């Protein structure tokens, strides 16, 4: 009797520990990159925004309907953003005459004046907007920067990426948004 009950207790404890380990391994994640890359917003309509651009105009998502819009959250002090800068510059050059693709930078967690001065000194020649109050960054569910969202022509978010992207990765995401694999 004693041997059987001890065995059952051991089996019970082993099952509880195994289930707990499986739940921990599959459900718990503190890696913001992994969390952002499986953003809940992918497959859902992109949050609308209407922000002041550095060039004095307004940047409205609604005016870009029918285009693939690459929204890149960045700031002047983030080192990975600087690492990504070359890829964004090349991507912008590649699509400068492509009316179907727009690259929009949105400043996250930085002052407009500092980010504006940085953009000017580094000749960032794509559309950049500030996000007063970070309301758009929150609507997109951002966790840091750089963070990039690719919005397809139908206005649905096709992909989200946390961390610096390469030109090849950006091209692949844009191709996916346009139905090209």
């Amino acid at each position: 009797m004693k041997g059987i009950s001890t065995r059952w207790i051991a089996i019970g404890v082993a099952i509880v520990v195994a289930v707990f380990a499986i739940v921990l391994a599959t459900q718990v994640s503190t890696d913001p990159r992994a969390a952002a890359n499986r953003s809940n917003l992918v497959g859902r309509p992109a949050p609308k925004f209407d922000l002041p651009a550095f060039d004095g105009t307004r940047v409205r998502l609604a005016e870009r309907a029918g285009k693939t819009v690459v929204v890149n959250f960045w700031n002047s002090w983030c080192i990975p953003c600087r690492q990504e800068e070359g890829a964004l510059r090349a991507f912008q050059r590649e699509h400068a005459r492509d009316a179907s693709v727009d690259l929009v930078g949105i400043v996250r967690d930085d002052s407009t004046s500092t980010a504006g001065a940085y953009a000017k000194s580094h000749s960032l020649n794509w559309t950049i907007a500030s996000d007063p109050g970070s309301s758009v960054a929150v609507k997109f569910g951002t966790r840091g920067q750089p963070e990039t969202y690719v919005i397809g022509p139908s206005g649905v978010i096709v992909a989200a990426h946390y961390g610096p992207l390469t030109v090849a990765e950006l091209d692949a995401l844009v191709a996916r948004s346009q139905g090209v694999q």
Partner: protein
Amino acid sequence: MRKWIPWVLLAVVAIATITVAAWPSGGKQSASARAHGLAAELRCVDCESLSVADSSTVSARAIRADIAQRIRHGESDVDIRAYYVGQYGESILLKPASSGIGAFVWILPVLVLGAGAGGLVVALRRWQRTPRLRASDEDRALVERERELDA
């Protein structure tokens, strides 16, 4: 029957304590108290181990402003929580959800406590059943012989 009375009393006290502790406090909260309460439930998205209520990051401030605005627009606490879970996933909640996979976190300690209490009861009952040794006639005779020899 009488020996169960302390256990029943203990169970009553334990259940009463848990019920009182877990019972939601009544009264209608002000909008700012609701906003603070909700912000305290949400994890700061770009800092470690802090709630949105306790963090001073730009995103935490933006979320606090958004919560206040949603309350002004008449959204319920459930709606606001659901919105943020929809945006960021369950990980935005500092306290795991009490449904779905999150319920496991709440149920596990109860299971472990129950298993421990059960084990304790089994151990105590076994201990009580252990027969107490009584001196036999042979034992008594042996003791008598030893006493006589000492005398």
